[in-house]
Structures are given as C-alpha cells and as structure tokens.
C-alpha cells in the first residue's frame, strides 16, 4: 500500500476511534448527566435569563418546532439585512460591496439551513464582519439546530409514553457550549500552529519572484474553518474553500479537517445507542451507513487514481491520477475520499473541484447527496436515516404480516405517510428544479450558466439542485449561479430541503412517543439485526438510487459512455 492510501485508512480509523467515546459524551450531555464541561452551566443560565427563557420547561414536539422555526426566521432576517448593507459597515478593509437582494437571499438562507451553497466568492463577495457575525455565527447555530432536533428525536424514542420531549432551547444551547464551541477552539489552535492566518488586516500586496505584483487575500480564517467543518457547514472563507492553501495549509490540517467534519455525525450514531441503551442498534446503523459510504468512496478513489482516459491518450505520466482541480499536497486518494465524505455528510466543503472529477465519480457524489443519510449532516443525518428506518419497519411488517413496531411503538398509517412525503419531497425538489432549469437553458442557450458543454453541463445543473436539497453546499462550481434564477430557485429548494426533513421525522417521533408502549415479545420485529440492516439498505437503494437513475443516466452516465 502506498502512503496516500494509508493516509486515508488512517483518517477513517482515527475518526471512528474518537467518535465512540465522543458519542458517549454527547449522550450524557443530552441526558443532562454530569460531564467535564459543567463549568459552562452558569454561562448557559445567564444566556437563558437574559433571553427570558425557562430552559427547564418541557415542550411537546409541535412547540419545539415552533421555537426552532421562529429563531431560524430571526437569523434569516438578520443575516439578509447585514449582507445587503455590509459595504457600509466596518471591518471591510478590502472595500467589498454589499450583496444584491437575490444573492443576499440565497446566502442568508444557505447558511441558515446549514448548507453553505456559495454563489459569491469569499475574497470579493463578503466583508470580515459578514464572515463573522453572519456566516460564522450561522455555522454555529445552524449546526446546533440540527443537533437539538436530533436530541428531541433521542428523547422521543425512550421506552415510555409521553408528549413532553425536553426543551428545544436547552438542547440548542448545550449543543453549542458543550459540543461545538470546545471542539472549535481545540481545532482552531491546531490550525494556528500550522500557519493558518488569523488577522483582521486586509489584502497584502507582494511582488512575486518573477516580478509580478500580486495581491494576497487573508483574514480571520483560523476562527472560521473549525466550525465550518465541525458543524458540517462547509462554506469556505475563500472562494476555493479547503483547496486554498491558507484555508488548508498541509496534509496534517487536511486530516484534521476531515476528522472534524466527520466526527459529530458519526458520534451522533453512537450517542443514540448510549442514550437509549441500545448499542447494538447503533452498530447496525453504523454498519449500513459505512457500507453505503464505502460503496461510493472506494470506486471514486479507484477512478480518480486511474485518471482521465482522454489525457492518458496524450501520452503523459498518469501515475498521480486525475489532477485537474486537485492539489499536490493532498494527492488524488485523499481528494477522492474527501469528495465522498463531504457529500455523504452534507458538509460540502471541498479540497478539490468536483466539476473536474471523472463522470462516474461525479455521479457517486450526487448519489451520496441524494441519499443524504449515510452519516448525514450534524443531527439531521440521523433524522433522515430515521425516515428510512420507518419505511423499512413498515415494509418488513407487511412482508411478515404483522403490525409494524419500532422500539415498542406501533408504526401506523399516519407515520408512514409522513415518511413517504419526506422521501418523495426530495425527488420532487431535485427533479422538478432540474426540469425547469433544463427547459430554461434549452429555450435560451445564450444564458451564461454552463461551463461545460453536453452531458457534463446537464450534470452541473443536476448537481446544484441535488446539493441544495441535501443542504450540502458543494457544487460543480463551473455553473454560473450568481443570477436571480439560481439564487431564488435554489433558495426555495434549500428551505424546503431543510425544514421538511426536520419537521417530518420529529413529527413521527412525537406521535410515536405519545403511543402506548408495548414491551418486546417473541413476535416483535428485531431492529438491531443484520437482516434489518439489509432491509434498510434495500429501502435506501430503491427509494433513492433507483428513483434518480433516469436523471443520472442523462448526465454522468451518458458522459461516461461518450468517453469510452
């Protein structure tokens, strides 16, 4: 094995090793048990007191969702306002302008929903003030929103009958102070040691060795990048995200950034097991997710290492793989691994440019986002996976002719209907948006949208809607997307793609929690077994992979065959 493959195996192993104890810790935090970080309690209490919130009062699922949506609305209005007037505000040494209304709409939504689709470039599109109080702030709180929603799910799955599911604000604040903030500071310190900039000065002007005058953008990068990954946000400080040498200076920071974006989603899977005292159930979920992840990541690493056949044909040395859009310090295997990691877990940060990946690698990135539940984003990944579990429970129940049950609660028509609506909504948003875009560009081919002709151009548009719906935020960045059509259409997809998959699972969980608890018996469907794992995998394959096959056939698959 070469050092690049060993590097990737190490990153995966290290994350898993850290995620298990961290999952135990997260379970303790949400249960309200004693932890090492209890010195934050007075601070949290001060926050609650100033805000006039009683964090002890338990809410039912509907009230939690109202609280969640209300505070998200406040964030959106605040962020959109700041982005539209940022040019006149302080901390703008580079003199960057305010955003247009449609771009501010898209950007504010995109960061609020934990997506970080960026239709601007960090160097020229935002000020330091906006980076910090809009974008970085939203990176903290949007991740905490997802985690709080997952905590409500945990609470609802306990073996009892209730409609009281904890306090949203309490879960939200603890996600911030006990999970995201301490980790961010640790990661920031590692980055500072590795030379990531942390300055409020503007662009520096240097003379290159060849005598060219070059301006170098900089900024408070080392504060921004930790939460960008820990919160599975993914929005870059600079235009080229974690491919930029200031945002990801070396292979070591590359490892840290990959572990950082992976750790919370993975730890949440184990936290579920510790919280409910059903560790085997966690391992079943982990198994399904990991097999799905590897089925996408391994082929990508092989295809990228193989390189572009059209360039191989020209007769150069292809041993480093498909290097277009990739950086030498990461190399092909780590770049291909990152490209799937960032798409399975809704981060959307990139260390290499997905538009230039081989056609089927691009397809795997899209499939990762279409499923959006192999690990998935901070908290929300587990919510998405919960939907697949409900459908699998229902189908299994039908197959054996029993009333479907999950963790001692009957799963009935209403819950399954919600689950199906959530699943179908993704397909409608992605393919519906795609249909409109394809019609538009066909009617007026002069639109400056596509950076590549033919099938690949189709993939650029499909990727954008897939990324928006999955709240991922990566892109086939060649797409000319800073215009009203893309800003508004993806903005709408972003909101629906965020809140339906939060409200739906929480509603199901809330309804289940209110039902009578039936103790396990010989007739109960076991959900922590290999058989059930296979069942979930089959459900995921059928409801996502197959339903997107026609669209993928027109883009990446067609491009693949045109090249071979």
């Amino acid at each position, binding site marked *: 094995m070469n050092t690049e493959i060993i590097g990737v195996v190490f990153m995966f192993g290290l994350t898993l090793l850290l995620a298990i104890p961290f999952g135990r810790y997260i379970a303790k935090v949400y249960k309200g048990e004693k932890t090492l970080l209890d010195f934050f309690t007075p601070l949290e209490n001060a926050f609650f007191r100033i805000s006039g919130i009683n964090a002890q009062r338990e809410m039912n699922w509907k009230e939690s969702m109202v609280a969640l949506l209300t505070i998200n609305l406040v964030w959106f209005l605040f962020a959109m306002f700041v982005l539209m007037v940022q040019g006149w505000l302080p901390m703008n040494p580079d003199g960057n302008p305010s955003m247009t209304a449609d771009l501010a709409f898209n950007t504010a939504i995109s960061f609020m929903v934990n997506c970080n689709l960026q239709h601007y470039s960090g160097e020229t599109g935002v000020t330091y003030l906006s980076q910090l109080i809009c974008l970085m702030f939203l990176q903290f709180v949007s991740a905490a929103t997802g985690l709080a929603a997952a905590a409500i799910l945990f609470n609802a799955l306990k073996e009892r009958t209730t409609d009281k599911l904890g306090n949203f604000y309490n879960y939200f604040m603890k996600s911030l102070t006990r999970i995201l903030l301490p980790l961010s500071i640790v990661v920031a310190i590692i980055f500072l040691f590795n030379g990531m900039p942390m300055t409020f000065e503007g662009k520096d002007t240097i003379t290159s060795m060849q005598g060219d005058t070059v301006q*170098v953008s900089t900024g408070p990068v080392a504060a921004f990048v930790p939460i960008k990954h820990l919160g599975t946000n993914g929005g870059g400080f600079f235009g080229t995200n974690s491919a930029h040498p200031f945002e990801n200076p070396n292979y070591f920071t590359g490892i840290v950034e990959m572990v950082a974006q992976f750790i919370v989603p993975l730890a949440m899977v184990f936290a579920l097991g510790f919280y409910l005292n059903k560790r085997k159930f966690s391992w079943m979920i982990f198994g399904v997710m990991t097999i799905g992840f590897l089925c996408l990541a391994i082929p990508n690493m092989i295809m990228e290492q193989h390189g572009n056949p*059209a360039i191989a044909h020209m007769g150069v040395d292809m041993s480093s793989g498909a290097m277009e859009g990739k950086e030498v310090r990461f190399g092909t295997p780590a770049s291909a691994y990152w490209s799937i990691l960032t798409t399975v877990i809704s981060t959307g940060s990139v260390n290499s440019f997905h538009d230039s990946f081989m056609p089927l690698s691009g397809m795997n990135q899209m499939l990762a986002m279409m499923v959006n539940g192999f690990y998935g984003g901070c908290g929300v990944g587990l919510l998405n996976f919960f939907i697949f579990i409900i459908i699998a429970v229902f189908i299994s129940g039908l197959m054996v002719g029993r009333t479907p049950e999950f963790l001692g609660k009957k799963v009935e028509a209403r819950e399954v209907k919600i689950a199906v609506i959530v699943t179908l909504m993704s397909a409608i948003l992605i393919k519906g948006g795609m249909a409109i875009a394809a019609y538009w560009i066909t009617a007026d081919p002069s639109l400056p949208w596509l950076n590549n002709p033919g099938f690949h151009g189709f993939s650029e548009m499909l990727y954008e809607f897939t990324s928006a719906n999955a709240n991922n935020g990566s892109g086939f960045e060649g797409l000319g997307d800073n215009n009203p059509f893309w800003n508004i259409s993806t903005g709408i997809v972003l909101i629906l793609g965020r809140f339906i998959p939060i409200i739906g699972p929480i509603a199901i969980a809330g309804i289940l929690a209110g039902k009578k608890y039936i103790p396990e018996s010989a007739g109960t469907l076991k959900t922590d077994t290999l058989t059930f794992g296979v069942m979930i995998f089959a459900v995921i394959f059928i409801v996502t992979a197959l339903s997107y096959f026609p669209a993928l056939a027109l883009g990446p698959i067609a491009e693949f065959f045109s090249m071979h």
Partner: protein
Amino acid sequence: MKSHIFPAIKMTLISIFFFAGVYTLVVWGFGQIIAPNDGKGEVVNYTTAGGAAAYGYANIGQNFSMDQYFWSRPSAVGYNAAGSGASNKGPSNEEYLAQVQSRIDTFLVHNPTIKKSDIPVEMVTASGSGLDPHISPKGALVQVSRIAAIRNVPEEKISALITQHTEHPLFGIFGPSQINVLKINIALDQLK
C-alpha cells in the same frame, strides 16, 4: 409563535456576541501567541528576477514560467491570490483537452531532452485553488536538465537540491511527497 419571538431575538443577539465575538477574539488571542508571523501566515524573503528585495507567502503559490526557475503548476486564475479559483472543466470538454495538449507541447518545447511520458500529469493540469504552492518530486526532476543547461550548473547539483527540498509524507507514512516551488526556487538562486 408570538411567545417565542422575543426570546428568539434576545437569544440571537447574545449568541452573536458570544459565538461570533468572544470566540473570535479568543482564537485571535491564541494566534498572537502561537501562530507564525502574528497570525498573518509564514513569510519568506527573496530577490526577484529583476534583482529587487521582496517577500512572499510560503503557502501561496506563485506563477513560475521563466526557464531558469522550477515551473509551478498551471493555474486557472493566473496565481491571482485575491481571487482563487479552479478551471472547473469537465473531463470530456474538448476545449479543455485541447488546452492540456497545448500545455504538453509547450512543456516539450522548453524541455527538449525529456520524453512525453516523463511529464507528470499534474504539470499540465490546473490545481484546485489556482494557488497550489507545490509540485511533486517527479514534476521537479523532469525540469532538471533545462534548469541545469540555462544556469550552467551540473545536473547533479540540481537533483541534490530536489532531494533536499522534498517534503516527505507526514510521519513518513501518510500522504504524498511534495516540493514547495517558491522555496526551492529561492534555494536555486542561492546555488553557487
């Protein structure tokens, strides 16, 4: 909703103060102590081709296209460090493939002693950031004979410089080997 709106606003304001304000200052404070160059990024000094004293950032790649230097990788943005960017060209794009072909041809014109199959693919494809500070050891070795000829230095000396400047995989086992182009070119100028 009404009962949640004022708590939400107050919670938002205080979270901004703490998570965007206090947190940022804490990280900045650490930066002043532990980061190189007060958190502005590592700087290296050099003499430009024109003979002037200047400095650049070790992590920010520069455009090297003169024959006396090790070339850096192609960049989609011409090494514009105030507007990083990738080409975002798809693998089957004809126009892009023609561009790669012409880079290969240019490389061969400037390095007449090498075979086409010696050119590593990263030397004719653009990086992700457009600011890639590195090339691979292979990408450096393939330029040795050109640089030796134009600088009138024995090839062994240049090869030795490459060995000396190769940054090995992390802890010897993780990741690729690489060479910082700016640093090796500074060393090249200092070669007696």
